[in-house]
């Protein structure tokens, strides 16, 4: 199993594709386990600046965000993979997407000591430089998550290219999955907020009435305030 993860990180598309040809419960459980552990560890460093309790809440919610996104889009991703000619079955599609999230989770877990160190040195909540602390934490996490996401998708692209045999099909399938996952993932992140926690608001597992409102309406209102 450990060799599978190393092969995934290395981007050894040949080896990963050979595993995917015979999808197993063991592989499925392995990827889920790594996502749970890696994203929980990283999630704890996401919330720790606000409060230790926020750290615990985010450690629980970050893996949930990933699993809900995968589960919510499982059917449509499987269908798109078949419609666009990738050659992947529903099971293989789910495993491939879980693999990419597992790669991201491993990278995030690797960065956890560094983000924890950044938190240790950031001006704390309640200090005169609290805005600097909050901004530094926010930007650091955005950079780390973006890096992990790019690497994971690069590996997924390589795998799709190997399985489909054509880069154009791999590109189309990847972008269609990305579009769906980002669209749903952004909304789920909105529903499951807060992750980092705002200094102005209390520490909560979920905001009051978490299903009210949506991410895209909030972005639209923010744009309106900015430009109008």
């Amino acid at each position, binding site marked *: 199993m450990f060799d599978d993860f190393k092969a995934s990180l290395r981007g050894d598309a040949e080896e990963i594709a050979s595993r995917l040809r015979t999808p197993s419960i063991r592989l499925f459980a392995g990827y889920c386990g790594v996502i749970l552990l890696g994203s929980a560890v990283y999630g704890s460093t996401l919330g720790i600046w606000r409060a230790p309790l926020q750290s615990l809440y985010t450690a629980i919610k970050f893996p949930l965000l990933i699993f809900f996104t995968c589960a919510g889009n499982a059917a449509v991703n499987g269908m798109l993979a078949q419609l666009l000619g990738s050659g992947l079955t529903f099971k293989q599609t789910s495993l491939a997407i879980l693999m990419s999230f597992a790669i991201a989770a491993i990278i995030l877990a*690797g960065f956890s*000591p560094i983000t924890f*160190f950044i938190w240790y*040195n*950031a*001006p704390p909540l309640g200090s005169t430089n609290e805005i600097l602390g909050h901004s530094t934490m926010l930007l650091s996490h955005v950079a780390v998550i973006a890096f992990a996401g790019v690497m994971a998708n690069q590996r997924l692209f390589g795998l799709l290219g190997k399985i489909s045999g054509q880069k154009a099909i791999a590109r189309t399938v990847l972008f269609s999955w990305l579009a769906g996952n980002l669209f749903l993932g952004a909304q789920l992140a909105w529903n499951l907020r807060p992750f980092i926690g705002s200094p102005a608001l209390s520490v909560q597992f979920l905001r009051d009435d978490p299903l009210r409102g949506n991410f895209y309406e909030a972005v639209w209102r923010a744009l309106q305030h900015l430009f109008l």
Partner: protein
Amino acid sequence: MQNQPPPIPSKPDQFVFEPMPERSSVVFVIEALLKYPGRVIHELQNNWRAALAFWLFILGLFGMTVYGVVVGSLTGGDQMWIAPAKIAIGTTLSILICLPSLYVFSCLGGIDTRLRTVSGVLFAAVALASLLLIGFAPVAWIFSQSTDSVAFMAALHLGLWGIGMMFGLRLIDAMGRLLSGSSRTHLKLWGFIFVAVCLQMMTTLRPIVGRSDHFLPSEKEFFLAHWFETITARETKRIGVPN
């Protein structure tokens, strides 16, 4: 034909990937680090022994501690043991913080290796940097005895540390090359992260060069903000601007 000079024997490549001599002692390890670092990487990858990794780690800590005594000699007194203690602790913490990401970045760079190999190479890189710092110690000591300026000595120590780190990171880069990594960009990026963590660690554990009433600072600060404050305070003092 008879007057032609004999061909110059080719110098073995520093980073040739070959085993170390059978009877290896600490002296051989130091020689290999300086002259044939490729041999150290070969041993860590193909003939891993806990003793080798352990000695590399101890060598790195020892070198940093010895240099720490020179750092503390500027102010003297308690700094003669506080500076080496902080440098040794800071080095250990920096290694621990950055080791998981080094392993991940090695894998991302296409290297098929184990965590223990990567750990050993990181210890070797720090050991090499510390050997260079021991070499620079007399130079740093002479300057520390001829100035009272904390800012000047901090800048000098930082520069010498930077030179040592450059050679240490070159070893990390060689690991990528020798272990057939498909891309060395990831290891270069990791190098920047490691340097940033080390620079921040110096600020977290301040003061190392100067003196303070407390072992650790009470205020949290990022290293760029700390340097800016130090330089601004120095300029304010120099041109006599009232606070």
